[in-house]
């Protein structure tokens, strides 16, 4: 893909947005930069915003690694793209908000023996609401991002969110918690493009970040070392027993915080055969281990659910994704009430992990999701 006509750009953006003021959340990466240029070419009154979410000095780790958010290079990329394509760009300091709502949550979840998903919380608590709070007074009518997701709204305001056409890039998993009121004024220009198209467009438009490397790690844990991050935050490590499936004591571990279900290494004990963390009990710090087969379960309960569409009491023939890199599996949603639900999979799933999000789809349409609370 060498170029996109203004007509094609308008089709990606949605005709109704042409001529209107749109805030584009720009990370400095190739996706949001291409999204911004598409909006500009579609005739939107584009303003680029980069959210400064955290300081390297505050979160530790190695700032020399490329392709990450909130580095000088990423901020510079945003300014260069905006300058070259003729739209204003501002940096918003949201470090306080991010520290409180995302990093605070992240640390607390690990302390509870759960595995957090900070990207989802960042989207729903910081990116959309905090950005909207800042850009609405400037006359912006919508927020656009470089997420790979397809969004359209019915005339009655019902939002329909579909998986992106590029199956490797689909990011709907990270969007289930964004409230409907924000999605109604959101634009995802990249949902029908493939990543290769986006890179080709970036090259054709001479964007400085056409070849920036990908990263799927947690942005504020720059070195990928969660133990180090938790220690830097003064988070205590609670030692406890390591037991097998029958409760037999096998040894002790140095701290359950930062362990995750399905993890094989890091307990400091040699077992002679592959053993995995199957359960963490934060009350007394006990970590249960077992064989790969012990990781499989068919049922889990979710809490804090958010549904984009009105839901019946139960719904079969859905597929559910229990982590970003999990292939959605056939399931039935039961006992839907009070933002909770029970998910029953057709076949057992490996390492259903409390704290992670379970996200339900009907075909390619995102129904919503919730936080995995317990596994049966």
């Amino acid at each position, binding site marked *: 893909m060498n170029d996109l006509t203004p007509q094609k750009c308008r089709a990606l953006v949605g005709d109704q947005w042409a001529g209107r003021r749109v805030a584009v959340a720009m990370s400095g990466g190739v996706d949001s930069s291409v999204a911004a240029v598409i909006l500009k070419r579609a005739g939107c009154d584009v303003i680029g915003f980069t959210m400064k979410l955290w300081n390297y000095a505050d979160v530790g780790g190695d700032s020399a690694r490329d392709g990450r958010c909130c580095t000088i290079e990423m901020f510079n990329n945003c300014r260069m793209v905006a300058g070259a394509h003729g739209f204003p760009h*501002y940096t918003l300091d949201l470090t306080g908000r991010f520290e409180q709502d995302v990093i605070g949550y992240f640390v607390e979840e690990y302390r509870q023996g759960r595995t957090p998903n900070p990207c989802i919380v960042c989207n729903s608590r910081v990116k959309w609401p905090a950005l909207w709070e*800042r850009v609405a*007074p*400037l006359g912006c009518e919508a927020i656009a991002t470089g997420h790979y997701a397809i969004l359209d709204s019915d005339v009655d305001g019902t939002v329909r969110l579909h998986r992106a056409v590029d199956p490797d890039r689909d990011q709907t998993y990270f969007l289930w918690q964004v409230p409907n009121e924000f999605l109604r004024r959101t634009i995802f220009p990249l949902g029908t493009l493939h990543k290769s198209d986006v890179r080709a467009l970036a090259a054709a438009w001479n964007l400085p970040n056409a070849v920036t490397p990908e990263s799927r790690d947690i942005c504020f844990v720059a070195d990928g070392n969660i133990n180090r991050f938790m220690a830097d935050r003064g988070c205590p490590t609670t030692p406890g027993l390591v037991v097998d499936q029958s409760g037999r004591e096998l040894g002790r571990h140095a701290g359950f915080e930062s362990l995750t279900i399905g993890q094989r290494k890091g307990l400091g004990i040699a077992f002679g055969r592959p053993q995995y963390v199957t359960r963490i009990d934060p009350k007394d710090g006990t970590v249960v281990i077992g064989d790969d087969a012990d990781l499989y379960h068919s049922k889990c309960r979710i809490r804090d659910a958010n549904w984009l569409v009105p839901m019946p009491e139960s719904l079969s023939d859905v597929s559910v994704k229990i982590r970003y890199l999990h292939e959605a599996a056939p399931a039935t949603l039961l006992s839907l009430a009070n933002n909770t639900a029970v998910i029953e999979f057709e076949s057992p799933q490996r390492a259903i992990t409390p704290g992670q999000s379970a996200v339900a789809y009907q075909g390619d349409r995102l129904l919503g999701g919730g936080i995995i609370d317990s596994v049966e």
Partner: protein
Amino acid sequence: MVTPMRTIYCDYNSTTATDPRVIEAMNAALAVGGANPSSAHSLGRRARVILDEARQNIASLIGAKASEIILTGGGSEADNLAILGSLYSADAHGKHCVTVATEHHAVLASVEWAKRNGFDVTVLPVDGQGHVDMGRFQDSLRPDTQIVSVMLANNEVGTLHPISELAAIARDRGIWFHTDAVQAYGKVPVHVAQLGVDMLSLAAHKFYGPKGVGVLYARGGIRLAPVVHGGGQELGRRAGTENIAGAAGTARAMSLCADDPGEVPRIKGVTDDFRRRLAAQVGDIQIFGDPRNSLPNTVGVGFAGVDGGTLMMALDLRGICVSTGSACATGASHPSHVLEAMGIDRRYLGGTIRFSFGRGSLPEDAAVIADAVAEEVVRLRAMTPAAAHH
């Protein structure tokens, strides 16, 4: 929203665009002065003449001698050299320095660094208008005080300090006195003998000269330790091959200011008109500083119930360039240390904007900007609940 016909720049305290006549002088210097002015050959001498002439002009325009002028890489470097060069001077008799809470970070960060390196620092408070108490100033001076640094004009609120009085007190006790005059030159008289200072810093880009050129005046007899080490340039006080075009541009920029004495009253007229209109058109604001004793071009304002960053962006989208408090490198929104030191009410701290007028300001700008501010402030106040602001 209306698309502006013209971008209005109202941020002259952040920087000024280089005057075309300055660019001309710099181009001429680049064309002729291509050799190293320290070289003894004919081309070196040709470059040297341009540098010497520029230095002589800079010196004359502030009442100094050429040997008292040190060219640096900017105003911040000049401030660093004055403070650290004094504390580390071979002639230093004490390890104590005194400065004021509303100084530029170039001064405050220098004394903080000195403090971490074993020096003793007193940072004086200011009153609500940004003035230092004379009694407190006198009490802060000690037998081991080596240097006092007080800015001539504050960059955020415009308050002028009584430098000649303060410097006289220091001089009586044998204490070196430095003033950061970066925001003052071209706006209020800057003459080293009249001020009675031992050291004085300038930055060319604040008066339509080039960025990256600073001037430190150091009175004859003041022996500073260098901060930038290397060759013996600037009489051993600042190493590095001289920026000849920068020096020529700085001299030209200074003489352009001196040659047009009507310009300051003209800018003051626009500024005063703006201040009056703002006070009349927008309710619940505070105009900072001491209007009777201020830079002629600066209006620092706090708007209650408005986020300063949002107002800055809203004005920018209408083609009006202003800054929140002072323009800092990251654009991050921290409360200004100047306004905090002045004890400004929290209601106004989150919504501060600095308007600063200059050579390109037109008489009608006062009304255009005031109208736009009034409109945006009313709109923003209507949109955001007052409680949502820090």
